[in-house]
Each structure stands twice: as C-alpha cells, then as structure tokens.
C-alpha cells in the first residue's frame, strides 16, 4: 500500500467514523465545503494510480460514466434534504460516506480517460452548479435545511460561489496558457 493510499484510508476512517465528522456536520459551510470534498479526495487517493487494465477502464473506456456518477453524487450532497438526512440519520451518513468514496475512486480513473473535452464538460457543469447553488443559498429568504442556521447557509453559499469562481478562473487560465489554436490539454493529475 502506497503512502497516498494509506492517507486516503486514514482520511476515510476519520471522516466517516470519528467525532471529526460530528464537528464538520455541525456547520453547513463545513459540511459542504470541507467534509464532502475531503471524502471525495479520500476516495481518489484510495483508488491508487489509475491503470488502463482496471475494471472500471473496461466498463467506462471514455470516462463518461465515471464523470456522470461523480456529478450525480456531488449534486446529491448539495440538496438540502440530503444534507439534513446526512446529519440526522446514521444510515444516510454512511450512504454519504460510501457514495463519496466510490465517486472519488471512479473519478480518478474516469478523469484521466475523459480527455480535455470530457474534463471541460465535467468542470463546467460542476462550476455552474456550485455557482447557482451558492447564489441560491446566499439569497434564500428562508432556511433551506432544517438542521442549519440561516447565517451558516449564507456562509455556505459564499463558499460555494468562491469555489466556483476559483474553478472557473483556473480553467480559463489554463486555456489561455495552451498553445494558440489548441484546445486545452488534458490536465494530468498524479
């Protein structure tokens, strides 16, 4: 087991089964902007280096299926009802951990196989979704989650908006840096 995979396993255990989880789900902003991305990262690290002969490569040669599942999982954990249940129901808390770990693991292989167009589609989708969700959370006149305070909802919205902006800027900068006339090259992630 490599160091990265050990780190992924450690992150997964700490985030799923220790008081760290309670600490992170206590606030909407930490739940959406720390717990969810870190659990996804744990899945990514646990997967290890993507190989072309792996199972998911033969069932998902173009990476589209993995990116679709990644999008669906991330969308699910932005839905207020799902966030509430992840706090109040232990079984949904496990569902959240398992789906995010699986999505992270699948994304690692799928990302590499998807190529520049697939990656741009995925990042573009995610960016817009985070931006729209962020604006909605900031502007909502009522609380959308029954478990979180309105102030915290505003912070979570601001965080999502900043995340989306950072994603967009990074992607655009990379595009500008690409040789003239080329589409952006596939991003290599170790």
């Amino acid at each position: 087991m490599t160091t990265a995979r050990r780190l992924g396993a450690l992150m997964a255990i700490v985030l799923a089964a220790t008081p760290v989880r309670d600490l992170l789900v206590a606030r909407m902003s930490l739940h959406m902007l720390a717990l969810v991305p870190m659990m996804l990262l744990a899945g990514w690290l646990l997967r290890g280096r993507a190989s072309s002969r792996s199972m998911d490569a033969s069932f998902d040669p173009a990476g589209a299926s993995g990116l679709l599942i990644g999008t669906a999982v991330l969308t699910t954990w932005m839905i207020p009802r799902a966030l509430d249940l992840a706090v109040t129901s232990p079984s949904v808390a496990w569902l959240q951990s398992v789906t995010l770990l699986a999505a992270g693991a699948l994304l690692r292989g799928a990302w590499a196989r998807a190529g520049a167009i697939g990656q741009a589609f995925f990042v573009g989708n995610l960016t817009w979704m985070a931006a729209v969700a962020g604006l909605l959370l900031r502007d909502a006149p009522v609380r959308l989650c029954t478990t979180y305070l309105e102030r915290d909802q505003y912070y979570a919205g601001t965080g999502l908006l900043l995340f989306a902006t950072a994603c967009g800027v990074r992607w655009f900068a990379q595009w500008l840096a690409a040789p003239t006339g080329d589409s952006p090259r596939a991003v290599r992630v170790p």
Partner: protein
Amino acid sequence: MTVRTRPWRAAIGAASAVVASVLLLGWATSGFAVLTTDADRARRVARVPQPVPDVAVRSLDGTVHTVLVDSRTSSASPRAVIVDFVYTRCVTVCGVLGDTYQQLQRAILERGLADRVRLLTISFDVAHDDPERLTRYAMVKRVDPTVWTLATPVDTSGRDVLLQTFGIQVVSDGNGGWVHNAALHIVDPQGRLVRIVGITEVDSALDAALDAWAAAR
C-alpha cells in the same frame, strides 16, 4: 492512455451509471419532487395523514390534559385545529407566527367559524414556558380563549414525541435561543395531521382546516 474497447462493456457501464445516478438523485428528492426536508414533510402528510399522539400538556390555567382536548366543551361537534410551535422568548420566526395567529383568530371570529376551526399554540420550551409566561404571551397577543388555546408539554419526552410527529427540528442558535422550522399544521377533528402550509398562508390554512372539518362530518 489506450484502452481496448469492448462496446458491450461500455454500454453496461454507461447504463449502470445512468441508473445509479437516477436512483441516488431520485432518493434525495423523494422521486424528483422536493429539495427540502420541509417540502418533503408537507408532501408526505398530505398523502398519508399522521395521527397526533396523546401527549400531556399544561395549559394557561395550569390544568393538565392531552394535547388535542378541546377546552370548549359546549361545542357538540369537534373542531379542526391549526397547530403551531413557538417558545415565548423567541424573537424571530415566532413573531411572524404570532401575527399570523392573530390574523387567523380575527378571520375565524369575523367569519363565524369558531364552531369549526380553533387554534392551538404549543410551546416547546418546557423548562421556561410555565402557565404564567404563557398567560403573559396570551395577553400580548390578545388571545380569545374560545378560539385560541396555548399549552406546554409537561415533560421533555412528550415534547420530543410531538416535535417528531410534526417534523419540527429545533437547533440552538448559539446565543441561548433556538431556531426552528415553522409552519401551520392542520389537524382534523379525528386528531390526524392532514396538511402543512407556510407560516404566512392564512387563507390556505383556514381553507384546509375547513376542508378537514367538512370531511369529518
């Protein structure tokens, strides 16, 4: 990266991914119908009425009775009830609820509906809202006891059962107070929670209560 393509495997992979995505998003949104817990609750209640448990409460005059007992015994036929949850120290959403209830009380009296619909405000602040504090709240709100009754559960276990039944989540606001989801809950004369509407929807709450009353006759 070169991948040896086996089309049927890719097709199975794609189909599974679509099915998994639809299942997960469908679960989170109760079949692509709702985004929030409150909306889900309102939808479920409208489909399947929820019996309200017989929790013991203490009312303004200090008497203990079960939560849905109609204090006005002169009324031969039972009335539909519009229930809300507050705590009297609340400075946020409970103020809106108080205004809505004053409007409801006025509408019930003006339209002569006091034989059909009544109002019930339940405080979940078991430790603080004793009959004395409820009485003060009732005076401020100009409560007409023939239409509007107030009560506090006698213990926290009864309170929690009520909050669970009505789907109220109480969260600490970090300053000694609480934040809670608020709504108008329509309970029919048989004691079943049949509708949940928004806290400013006076007319739909009244209509729903009258429907519930008419349906029980």
